[in-house]
């Protein structure tokens, strides 16, 4: 029997939700019938609106999908202005202030505290510069990820930007693909870095070369069924298909149609295509795609470039990100800037857009490591750009602990999360920077902190993986983390080994300090990567490498932040929540 969500989707879904949202915006929050909240909140996701968690009723997270994280400075400025004018709530965040934008691991932008009444004005502003919230959440084609510097990167096989634009146009707002059994995440990589992180996407186009009709063709191998959520991580599997760039839209249409028709609509927990390929195997996946959805003979897979991949690969011979100054193919430079945990104040967003434009940049990029790239900086301007005040905070040469840290939204806003995340990761990063010496030769160290098993911070593919948990400390329930080690992508993608369970959150920095000390003492040589060091050891050895410990680190969020209406409010109790509120954050009169 189709799930309840499927029944709601059958009634109303896709493009038509926009008209309902506009009506609710005009009539106000109270116009959404209380007994239809669940159905409407599920549908609103399709237009990028996700209702915030308990205690924050009437507030929404708004997600803006930017294909491959690529924007113009004008678009970035608009995001900053929308964040400044609309993404403010009743209480400030102590680390980030009252208005900010979050850059996500799928190269989108998230704004919080959005009121339904403001949506038409926000859409007007976003859409006037070519941005949209369409299909940013919900059961459809999500934001397409890939290298934001495609076409500018001096280190690439295929410029995928025109193809990604084509896919974006074809699959956004298209009724044929509007209602899929579950989310559909696509990655397209044309570079030699592996920066699309296709391995963890439902559908991945990986750069490859194939001899066809006596001619060497540059295109893609097609992998299917990657994903990290729900303790069921999978790497996308090779279905033995090569795809010419001009056929990418056809193959993508075939695969997403196959998912639409064969995906499980009875059980949402079993709906992602990773479970279908578990059941079918890659051979059947290929044959069904070929026989039922393609009108040309699919070539077998070509020669991939995986052995060159260095993005988030844990290698010692290359940085696994876009931070720093890099050559563009046109002789200019792109500069990757660190945005700790992906959150930037609205004022900084606007200032950065202004600075980028002043230097003639036509391209801003959001990366899957939650950082930001400014493209098109001429050689003669580079020193001046690097001297800009804003780059002291958002550095092109950050400390490795700040550079490598990723965190999801957490209990600040998210219903799923078990623990507080972003503010905590900021505090971890600062403490580690100030108190822990990295072993010689370690220039990158990736810590991914995720609040729950949904894995939005991609915890399984980091040097140190932190996944939200609880434990008891002196009898009291406290926020904690399961700790994994040694994950990463690259030539041989590996998920982290979970070696320490339920470490109290205030003992995690001490654990990391002890772990790095053990790594320095026991590694073969300064050339051995942390990832290789972990790979050489079995589970028991890894568990015994280091112990957790209390240190001078203080954790203000150790209690149950999920029980608060907002973790940083003066009175955090659920009863103190002003929600639901009117557009001015004032409590609405209660029905009681």
């Amino acid at each position, binding site marked *: 029997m189709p799930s309840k969500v499927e029944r709601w989707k059958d009634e109303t879904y896709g493009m038509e939700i926009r008209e309902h949202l506009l009506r609710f915006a005009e009539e106000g929050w109270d116009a959404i019938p209380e007994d239809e909240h669940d159905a409407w909140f599920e549908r609103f996701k399709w237009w990028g609106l996700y209702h915030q968690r308990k205690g924050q009723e009437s507030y929404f997270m708004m997600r803006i999908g930017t294909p491959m994280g690529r924007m113009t400075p004008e678009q970035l400025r608009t995001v900053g202005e929308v964040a400044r004018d609309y993404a403010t709530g009743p209480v400030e965040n102590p680390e980030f202030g009252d208005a900010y934008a979050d850059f996500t691991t799928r190269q989108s932008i998230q704004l919080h505290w959005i009121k339904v009444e403001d949506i038409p004005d926000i859409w007007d502003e976003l859409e006037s510069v070519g941005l949209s919230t369409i299909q940013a959440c919900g059961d459809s084609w999500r934001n397409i990820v890939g290298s934001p510097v495609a076409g500018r990167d001096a280190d690439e096989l295929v410029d995928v930007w025109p193809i990604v634009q084509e896919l974006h146009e074809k699959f956004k707002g298209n009724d044929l693909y509007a209602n899929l059994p579950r989310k559909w995440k696509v990655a397209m990589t044309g570079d030699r870095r592996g920066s699309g992180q296709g391995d963890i996407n439902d559908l991945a186009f990986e750069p490859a070369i194939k001899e066809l009709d006596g001619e060497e063709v540059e295109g893609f191998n097609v992998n299917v069924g990657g994903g990290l959520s729900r303790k069921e991580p999978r790497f996308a599997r090779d279905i033995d298909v090569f795809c010419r760039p001009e056929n990418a839209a056809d193959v993508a249409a075939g695969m997403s149609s196959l998912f639409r028709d064969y995906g499980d609509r009875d059980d949402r*927990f079993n709906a992602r295509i990773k479970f279908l390929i578990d059941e079918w195997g890659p051979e059947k996946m290929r044959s069904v795609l070929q026989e039922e959805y393609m009108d040309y003979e699919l070539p077998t897979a070509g020669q991939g470039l995986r052995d060159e991949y260095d993005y988030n690969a844990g290698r010692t011979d290359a940085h696994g990100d876009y931070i720093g100054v890099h050559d563009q193919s046109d002789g200019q430079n792109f500069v990757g800037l660190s945005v700790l945990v992906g959150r930037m104040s609205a004022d900084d967003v606007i200032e950065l857009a202004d600075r980028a434009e002043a230097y003639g940049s036509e391209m801003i990029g959001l990366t899957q490591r939650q950082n930001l790239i400014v493209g098109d900086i001429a050689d003669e301007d580079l020193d001046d750009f690097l001297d800009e005040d804003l780059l002291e905070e958002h550095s092109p040469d950050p400390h490795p602990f700040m550079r490598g840290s990723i965190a999801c939204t957490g209990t600040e806003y998210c219903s799923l999360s078990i623990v507080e995340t972003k503010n905590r990761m900021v505090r971890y990063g600062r403490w580690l920077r100030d108190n822990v010496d990295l072993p010689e030769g370690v220039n990158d160290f990736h810590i991914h902190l995720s609040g729950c098993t*949904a894995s939005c911070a991609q915890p399984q593919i980091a040097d140190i993986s932190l996944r939200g*948990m609880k434990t008891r400390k002196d009898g009291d329930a406290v926020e904690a983390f399961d700790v994994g080690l040694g994950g990463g992508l690259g030539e041989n993608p590996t998920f982290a080994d979970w070696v320490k369970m339920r470490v109290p959150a205030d003992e995690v920095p001490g654990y990391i300090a002890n772990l790095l000390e053990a790594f320095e003492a026991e590694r073969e040589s300064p050339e051995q990567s942390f990832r290789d060091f972990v790979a050489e050891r079995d589970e028991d050895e890894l568990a015994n490498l280091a112990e957790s410990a209390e240190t001078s680190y203080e954790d203000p969020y150790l209690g149950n932040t999920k029980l608060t209406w907002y973790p940083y409010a003066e009175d955090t109790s659920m009863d103190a929540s002003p929600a639901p509120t009117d557009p001015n954050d004032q409590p609405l009169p209660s029905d009681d």
Partner: protein
Amino acid sequence: MTTDVHQLDDGAWVSVNDSREVNVSDLWRLAAHDFCACALADFLAEGFVEVSADGANVEGRIAGRCIQCGAEGVTDWLTLGRVDPDTGEFRPVVPESVHLPGRRRRPAAPR
């Protein structure tokens, strides 16, 4: 009286009559259970897998972990709360109190 119950947002919470009532991340004390070897399991709710209404009773099976012994899995049916037949108001159980899962056998229910 019919009670409308379902889990949403990847099992993050349970909705009762279109009102979100029970959330993940609470610790539940389980006694007389077969979830793990602990006499009194200290169970962290990470996701609602199945939910069902039996008259006014709202019940669910929850994925999660005992934070004492580390055992992972899905619980047997647990009573999550009860809908007051007079007012229609949902009264949740207190997770930290002791619960006895699976005391009554019940058929699988649609999600």
